[in-house]
């Protein structure tokens, strides 16, 4: 009995977490401030290695005119702070949530590009997640998969 309750809680907790994650981001997306905030990563390299001759790292360059970019030296020995944000307005409200589920939120694409740029510059390649993601399809698993698919485009890295 205890086991079943705990199991339900844990899996329910994940579903809840995902919902909360979506809705909390939704409120943020609604505010103009959040929509225009810079997405940042710090790269453990000097600015001239991050943007040699002003050239953007490949994953960011791919986003072309859709984004604006800033580069500045990080304090101490921490390398370079690289920031980017979409120029086009971010979808808001319900459309925004749907866009996020479909992985179409431009901010997600920017976030992912920043993270990939960092990994590429620091390690020489973009690390790929283990695959296949699962061998056993379950309803709770599907919620997690959905979140996992987008997880690369979320988070601060």
């Amino acid at each position, binding site marked *: 009995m205890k086991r079943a309750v705990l199991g339900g809680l844990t899996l329910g907790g994940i579903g809840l977490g995902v919902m909360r994650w979506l809705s909390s981001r939704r409120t943020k997306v609604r505010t103009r401030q959040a929509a225009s905030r810079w997405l940042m990563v710090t790269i453990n390299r000097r600015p001239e290695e991050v943007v040699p001759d002003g050239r953007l790292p490949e994953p960011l360059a791919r986003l072309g005119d859709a984004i604006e970019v800033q580069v500045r030296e990080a304090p101490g020995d*921490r390398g370079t702070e690289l920031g980017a944000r979409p120029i086009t307005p971010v979808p808001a409200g319900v459309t925004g949530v749907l866009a996020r589920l479909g992985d179409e939120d431009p901010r997600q694409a920017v976030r992912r590009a920043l993270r990939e740029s960092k990994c590429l510059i620091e390690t020489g390649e973009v*690390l790929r997640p283990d695959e296949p993601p699962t061998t056993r399809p379950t309803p709770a698993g599907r919620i997690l998969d959905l979140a996992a698919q987008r997880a*690369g485009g979320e988070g601060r890295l």
Partner: protein
Amino acid sequence: MKALCWQGVNELSVEHVPDPRILNAQDAIVKVKLTTTCGSDLHLLGGYIPAMRAGDVIGHEFLGEIVEVGTEVRRHKVGDRVVVASIIGCGRCWYCENDLWSACDNSNTKPAFADMLYGQPIGGIYGYSHVTGGYKGSHAQYIRVPFVDYGAFHVPDGVDDMDALFTSDSAPTGWMGADLAGVRPGDVVAVWGCGAVGQMAARAAMLLGAERVISIDRYPERLAMTERYVGCETLDYTRTDIIEELKERTGGRGPDVCIEAVGLEAEGAGRRHLYDKAKQRLGMTLDRPIAVREAIYACRKAGSVFILGVFAGLVDKFPLGAMMNKGLTVRSAQQHGQRYIPKLLDLVARGELRTAHLATHTMPLDQAPRGYDMFKNKKDGCVRAVFRPWA
């Protein structure tokens, strides 16, 4: 290949799953020879670690042979006998360069989960939920090892597989606790927990020069093992008031360094324990910090507390006042294995660190669910069950 999969709370099964492939040029595929249970897996089994998915392969403390390498692998070749750190580090981000490997920026490809839970993404760990990257674990015949040049270490000739195995996770975790807590010659050190991690922490404290080490648990066989192989004093927390006993043994000061190697499923002797258990069961809190609380109360003024035990979320009744007013330094981490493994292999080779006694039970991978049952319920004196995927 065969692998042990988490199927739900307290549900494990051995399944046939696809073989891993090289996905990055710095990957290797390791053929697993030995892989062992860890207290951290019990937290997965109990359902306390979020973002586990039915079918996830678990296991993270292992040793094996490299059978395939990516085109950019420089320090390893096919045929190498290696022990692999349980956490994954890229070796080149700011954290890895500062020897804080479990905080690696690049080894977790699913940073959103930890970012949501903890405010920052944490590094990757094998077989330890999607919060730490969703990597497949080592309780399998093969495993993909990303950034293998940094995470895998050549086992010196003359060191047995079973001796080297525990330098993957439990030994470096214990060593980190004693090292980063700042154990110095002359210190009195108390260690909560006589599992593999606690035993390794106690041994590390002795090797770092502690004058006296006192280990705490309730299982007679674990206490006896600690006395015999670690060579320190022990206390049974069900038979004595730990805080008073430690005061008496330290001239009223309290230990200089307190290391907690118990984690979120801590047991207790008193009423407070029942309160914690009830809250955990009702889902009102995730973690039971019983040993952490005791360590903070016991520690001398301006002393140092290191939390090695794993916690997942929020705790209740954390003695912030004691910590603040006594001027304690409290530190914690998932283990920075890469920082310590070469030194530990060396100590094992010289016979100064004994580890093989931790492997109380060895069995084929097919019997892993039974192994976990023994390990979880401390049956037959089980301290670590070791699986042989090819037996």
